[in-house]
């Protein structure tokens, strides 16, 4: 029987492999050719418009709106520059910045905190802004402590531009204070007064006196302020030498131990509660007081607690001290090669001007670092206790700037504090071990 005319000659193995190889090569090349990301150098350096990416971790709706409006206004006023808003996330920010700097694809402007910027600056990822800041009004109008927070410890260069401050505060259940006959300490209070009040404000298991964030990698965030109040510096530079200073902090650590196990003012829950959970828990009355940053007011307002709340300063011992977290914008060193450094600096100056700093800080429930912006009457209102938090700006203190601090905090101080509070480590062992391990880290990170 003859085959039909439509029958074709069988495909040889060699021809099949040749066609399959060609198809595979085309399939592999197509995504590479069509989806290859435009490299930053090509992205940035067109003759007419310079593109600048503005990476921000702003998350409070008011701050997001203020920053987007600021960039829109900049773009309208500067048609030769296009500033692009890139939304980040505090939880992933360090990973993003580290990997994008390593990959050479970092946005021109990156939002973070001063300690990160110092590290990235020393590593060469962030540009030195010292000359740029000194050549602008930012030098005289930025609060000197904010500038100092952003200044690297060894080469004294400024690797990022500060624009806002977070201040550590205490939120209190005003109704419960009234019920127990305790006046709200608007003018400050001592540790003894705090302990006396906190004992009256504690009724376990219904509610505790104080809640704080002592979870892993954030243990020192709240506790360090109490350590500073004893006069301890924790990690400090003395005569050009950095050292660990924990011995004076004994009363602070003992106080927290006693609050946990003797007075039951705070509960073990603080060792695992994340910063995001605490305001929600406070809003339903699980604690009479909450230690966190001044940013949490919006969260509390929106949670609509069934009680009046106030925001006051932490109690003090030998001195008043709260943590401040200076937020900054860093400029990628790679922007110089891309030809976008000048454009990026223009964007940063615009966003750091008085009006934009005020709008951004109000939206974030924080404080601006410009002196002229901080003088705005909106930061002195009694509504939501802006005036009380602002008074604490002068007492606020930044984390140590030494590059060893992150490893010391995460690997030594934080875990040892948790172990001490969980009775795994005595106070003497905590002091000696943390000091010894801290000194080793200082030696490891000392400039060569």
């Amino acid at each position: 029987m003859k085959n039909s005319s439509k029958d074709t000659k069988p495909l040889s193995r060699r021809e099949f492999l040749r066609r399959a190889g060609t198809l595979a090569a085309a399939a592999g090349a197509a995504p590479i050719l069509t989806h290859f990301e435009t490299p930053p150098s090509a992205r940035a350096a067109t003759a007419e418009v310079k593109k600048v990416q503005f990476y921000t971790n702003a998350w409070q709706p008011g701050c997001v709106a203020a920053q987007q409006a600021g960039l829109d206004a900049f773009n309208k006023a500067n048609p030769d520059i296009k500033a692009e808003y890139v939304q980040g996330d505090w939880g992933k920010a360090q990973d993003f910045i580290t990997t994008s700097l390593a990959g050479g694809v970092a946005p021109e402007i990156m939002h973070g905190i001063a300690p990160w910027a110092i590290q990235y600056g020393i590593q060469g990822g962030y540009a030195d802004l010292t000359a740029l800041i000194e050549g602008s009004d930012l030098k005289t109008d930025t609060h000197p402590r904010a500038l100092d927070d952003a200044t690297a410890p060894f080469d004294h260069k400024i690797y990022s531009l500060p624009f806002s401050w977070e201040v550590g505060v205490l939120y209190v259940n005003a109704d419960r204070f009234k019920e127990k006959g305790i006046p709200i300490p608007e003018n400050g209070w001592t540790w003894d007064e705090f302990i006396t009040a906190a004992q009256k404000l504690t009724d376990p298991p219904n509610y505790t006196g104080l809640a704080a964030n002592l979870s892993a990698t954030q243990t020192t965030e709240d506790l360090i302020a109490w350590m500073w109040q004893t006069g301890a510096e924790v990690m400090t530079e003395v005569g050009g030498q950095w050292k660990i200073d924990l011995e004076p902090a004994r009363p602070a650590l003992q106080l927290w131990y006693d609050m946990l196990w003797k007075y039951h003012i705070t509960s073990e829950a603080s060792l695992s509660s994340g910063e995001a959970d605490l305001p929600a828990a406070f809003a339903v009355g699980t604690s009479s007081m909450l230690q966190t940053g001044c940013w949490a007011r919006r969260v509390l307002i929106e949670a609509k607690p069934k009680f009046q709340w106030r925001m006051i300063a932490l109690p003090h011992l030998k001195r008043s001290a709260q943590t401040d977290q200076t937020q900054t914008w860093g400029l990628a060193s790679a922007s110089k090669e891309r030809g976008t450094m000048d454009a990026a600096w223009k964007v940063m100056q615009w966003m750091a001007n008085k009006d934009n700093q005020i709008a951004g800080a109000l939206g974030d429930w924080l404080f601006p670092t410009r002196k002229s912006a901080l003088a705005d009457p909106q930061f002195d209102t009694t509504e939501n206790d802006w005036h009380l938090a602002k008074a604490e700006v002068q007492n606020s203190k930044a984390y140590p700037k030494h590059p060893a601090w992150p490893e010391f905090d995460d690997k030594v101080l934080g875990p040892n504090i948790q172990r001490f509070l969980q009775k795994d480590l005595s106070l003497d062992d905590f002091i000696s071990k943390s000091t010894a391990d801290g000194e080793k880290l200082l030696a490891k990170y000392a400039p060569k």
Partner: protein
Amino acid sequence: MQVRSMWKIGKIKRGNNFYPMKPVSFWRSRQATPFYFLLPTLIPLLLLTLYPFLNALWLSFTTYDSYNKDLSFKGLTNFSTLLTGDDLFWVAVRNTVAWTSGVMISTYVLGLITALVLNRPLRFRAFFRAIVLIPWVCPPVVAGRVWGWIYDANFSPLSFLLQQLGLIDHKIAWLADKNLALPAAMGMAIWKLFPFMVVMLLAGLQAVPDELYEASGIDGANAWQQLRFITIPLLNRVGIIALLFSSAWTFNQFDSVYALTQGGPGNHTMLLSLMAYQAGFRYFQFAYAAAIGIIMLIILAVPISIYVRRTLLSSEAAT
């Protein structure tokens, strides 16, 4: 058979005669065809795994970090520091071994029980077989967040349930208690991984002939004896493969533990994977992080290779 011998001796049959074949290189021969079909998979796999691995291996012998970008060979400095100068390393090793063995054993037992139940003629069996997969498809970070809420010190539904049942009299800070934090994190990992074990063991159970159960029943074997002498031995091979996969995944797990505890409280949930992440991304010590990764590979590879050689080869010999 005739064709095979012709290939071996390099002769081809035409009609009734044999003629020697023109010699061809291996890569142009028919025997090389499978390799060509594997190339589209092998090339990306090698690029994405072998290159980073070799890079990490080299990095582990340097002291490269973001401050001193020094890629010169420094020998075993990092390994020596890890093994003799870093207390956290041994804490992480202990936690990781406890974590891996606890999760593997619990997952196997729970997976086996579930697979045995799902192998029975149940009503809506297909529905149950489908929903048992839900934990497996849940993204690890989402699982970490959800379980973080389940274990929340203030709002834990688990504490609420146990209080209602009268098993506890106050809320438990699951993730704050140094004795409960690691078991709590393991609970999440078991929930996430046991569907994989169910799927593997269920597939293995399908291959167990019913006649064996019938015959053993006739001989007077009870359910426990059938399980012990028929089911488990015949599931051995599938079980080993499932355990090998799950042990590698569990040992290397990072994302869900990071989302849940970040290694706390007091490093009681610090795993080697978390330690490597912190070294690289928090302290910028990439060479040190690479050294931790290489040690993890060695820790995982040595027992697995010994176990595979002894167990799989012996089970092949037995069958």
